[in-house]
């Protein structure tokens, strides 16, 4: 448990993705089975111990600590598990600290009547950092920003494997992943059997940069503005996975229920509307359904979801991924016929005669709320990851707005001495009529190193206020901000949120009073 506690602690203080991967990889390499498997599960999906409720920790602490001292401490620390780990008055047990697997075993065996005594006894065997790790493990709330994808990347790095290979084997396996580690640690060892009807790593597209493609070799489709999903059905249960490999079935029960077939398909999740070819709504409407674990009947009725399919990876028990796109496409067109049309349709192929037509289609993409165009090489197999030369995406032109720099925050790692995260705003009304600035977005890329130095210097010379790592800046500098789209958001005071904002240009030539108004941005909401 101490080694795991140390890993957890270091992950908390590490901001760089590569450093996080290296830490997890080192842990996986150096820790014996089955501890590393349990740790991996805890860091990603979280383990569930039904006997440990949210209130259990407070109740256990109350058996040894004065309630007022606890609540004063909890208010100061801000996190229950951390408060408990620090305040716990340890009674020596003479027992060594538990390993991760021993702790998992004990916690899995706890019942409502034994949890208080057993948790207390585990806490007594640990130092503060170990207690913190144990309590985070017990409540399944690690909250350290470790995605499944990052964990699998770390796993691959630890054992010198290709991450796509790991993705291939990962799904369908259960903690503590004994087969997976056995395979990874002995190169000659047999790979765990791949369940054909399990999640498959996505094939990804490269951005198209200037070059023109030969339309005889590439098929063209719209790039739909929804979310990419994979449907995995085994005839009984159907699961939906996001691009990161996270399961999102719970948010779209009507889709899973309408997919009774044994097949793995790739497509775009959308909600009904009247753009994107007249059938789908904008991304903005889909937002209403995202990020919710449970959905209501009203939501399903107001924002009916459907999937626009574009690839077939597995049919029955046959893996089709090595076939050329043309063959997969033909089989997909046949397979769609088995599915209810109100929930599933096909992403149509755009029959373009020449490149000029496509240039025009891309120009018009925004008015129809398409995200752009997709190019797929007709002869390509379905390959995991982003392989050069097979799939390209050609996004619509970004939108831009002139915004005023309002706040700046220091970056992390190599940027920790630079103000590199910018919050910018637009006017509620023309400033001469008493308008004020409200933040409309945040960006931390898009600028060159030279521009970063210049911005950093500007911010230091024009600081109006300091709040810890954040500086409020005199509202004089205009930034031209590019963004892919903008939508309504209740989380922001301006009521707006940008997708993929970046700093396109520094407009030191432009007076702040001439920056855009909030209403200008409202008009761009799609």
């Amino acid at each position, binding site marked *: 448990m101490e080694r795991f506690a140390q890993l957890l602690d270091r992950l908390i203080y590490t901001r760089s993705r590569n450093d996080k991967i290296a830490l997890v990889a080192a842990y996986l390499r150096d820790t014996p089975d089955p501890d590393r498997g349990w740790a991996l599960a805890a860091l990603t999906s979280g383990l569930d111990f039904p006997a440990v409720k949210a209130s259990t920790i407070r109740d256990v602490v109350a058996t040894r600590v004065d309630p007022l001292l606890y609540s004063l401490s909890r208010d100061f620390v801000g996190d229950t598990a951390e408060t408990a780990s620090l305040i716990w008055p340890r009674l020596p047990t003479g027992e060594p600290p538990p390993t991760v697997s021993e702790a998992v075993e004990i916690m899995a065996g706890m019942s409502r009547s034994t949890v208080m005594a057993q948790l207390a006894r585990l806490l007594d065997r640990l130092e503060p950092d170990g207690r913190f790790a144990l309590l985070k493990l017990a409540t399944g709330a690690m909250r350290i920003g470790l995605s499944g994808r990052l964990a699998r990347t770390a796993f691959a790095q630890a054992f010198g494997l290709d991450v796509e290979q790991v993705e291939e084997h990962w799904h369908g396996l259960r903690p503590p992943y004994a087969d997976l580690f056995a395979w990874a640690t002995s190169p000659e060892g047999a790979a765990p059997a791949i369940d054909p009807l399990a999640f498959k790593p996505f094939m990804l597209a490269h951005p198209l940069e200037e070059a023109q493609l030969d339309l005889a070799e590439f098929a063209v489709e719209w790039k739909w503005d929804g979310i990419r999903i994979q449907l995995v059905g085994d005839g009984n249960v159907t699961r939906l996975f996001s691009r990161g490999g996270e399961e999102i079935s719970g948010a779209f029960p009507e889709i899973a229920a309408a997919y009774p077939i044994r097949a793995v398909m790739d497509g775009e999740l959308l909600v009904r509307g009247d753009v994107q070819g007249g059938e789908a709504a904008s991304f903005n409407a889909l937002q209403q359904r995202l990020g919710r674990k449970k959905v209501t009947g009203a939501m399903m009725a107001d924002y009916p979801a459907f999937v626009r399919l574009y690839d077939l990876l597995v049919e029955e028990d046959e893996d089709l991924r090595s076939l050329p796109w043309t063959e997969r496409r033909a089989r997909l067109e046949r397979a769609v016929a088995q599915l209810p049309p109100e929930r599933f349709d096909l992403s149509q192929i755009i029959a373009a005669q020449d490149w000029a037509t496509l240039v025009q289609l891309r120009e018009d993409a925004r008015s129809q709320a398409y995200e752009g165009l997709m190019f797929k090489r007709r002869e390509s197999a379905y390959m995991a990851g982003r392989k050069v030369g097979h799939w390209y995406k050609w996004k619509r032109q970004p939108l831009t707005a002139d915004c005023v720099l309002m706040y700046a925050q*220091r970056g992390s790692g190599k940027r920790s*001495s630079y103000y590199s995260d910018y919050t910018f705003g637009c006017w509620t009304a023309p400033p001469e009529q008493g308008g004020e600035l409200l933040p409309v977005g945040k960006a931390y890329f898009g600028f060159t190193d030279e521009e970063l130095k210049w911005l950093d210097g500007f911010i230091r010379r024009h600081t109006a206020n300091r709040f810890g790592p954040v500086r409020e800046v005199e509202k004089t500098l205009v930034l031209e901000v590019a963004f892919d789209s903008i939508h309504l958001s209740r989380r922001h005071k301006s009521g707006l949120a940008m997708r993929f904002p970046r700093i396109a240009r520094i407009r030191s030539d432009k007076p702040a009073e001439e920056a855009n108004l909030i209403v200008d941005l409202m008009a761009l909401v799609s």
Partner: protein
Amino acid sequence: MSSAPGWLRPERHGIYLPGTDCWIDPSIPVARALVTHGHSDHARGGHGHVIATGPTLSIMALRYGEQPSADRIDYGDTIELGDGTNATFLPAGHVLGSAQILLERQGERVVVTGDYKRRPDPTCAPFEPVACDVLITEATFGLPVFVHPPIGQELDKLLAALAERPDRCVLVGAYALGKAQRIIAELRARGFSDTIYLHGAMERMCALYEAHGVPLGPLALVADATLDDLRGRIVICPPSALSDRWTRRLPDPLQAFASGWMRVRQRGVQRGIELPLVISDHADWEELTGTIVELAPQETWITHGREDALVHWCGWSASPNCSIV
């Protein structure tokens, strides 16, 4: 506060002894000031007359210029303040020259701890417990979540981080008075003999410690070093310089911060700290409560810090009258 002596009282700007017109650690300029130690929330410039230990007077001279009038008082020595009141300065174990002040008048004994800690520190004399009727204690870390780990454990983390990154440096944010020198001295005590590099703001305070007999080993200024000199080195700077532009002259510094507040993870994460070092020169919860139990005063007054929890603890643990001043 039934038995509170009438001859001293807490005021907004410090503890005042009306009969003698003396103040303890006043935050505004006064005619006569008794100063427990050199930290700026205790020692201010501009007093008419200062009574403090030799090192504290040196620190004040460094920060505010030579005091116009001062009494230098050694640990264990007593000075008459007038009105039948005597003051004795005793080691507080906080930083070089730090003192508790024992006040005696007509058989009543009051101890003002100033800032203190009970752990060993190679840069200053250890805290000396003194029985008293009234204890006026600090409570900076007056919450039971603050139990400082042994300093050795934290320095092991620092040295491990250093060994892991031979191309980078570890930049340790530490208060220029006390914390920085304690870390250096503790590293030396563990046999660490490499040159330690300093931010310019640390230089004179380190020299002052050495002049008072605290050897700190080989030190050099970052300003005099090249980027390559600093690879694999420990660099110490004031906390405010941690993410300053100054750090751009360092080889990819790993940001460490030595402070008791680092016990709470979010405190470090919010500041972008990568290596928190829980090292404090203040008493932790166990030291605060243990000292009250050990000295068994009839009354405890709590000055600066987080007093609610300690006041509650006093009542709950059947310790003597306890109040916030």
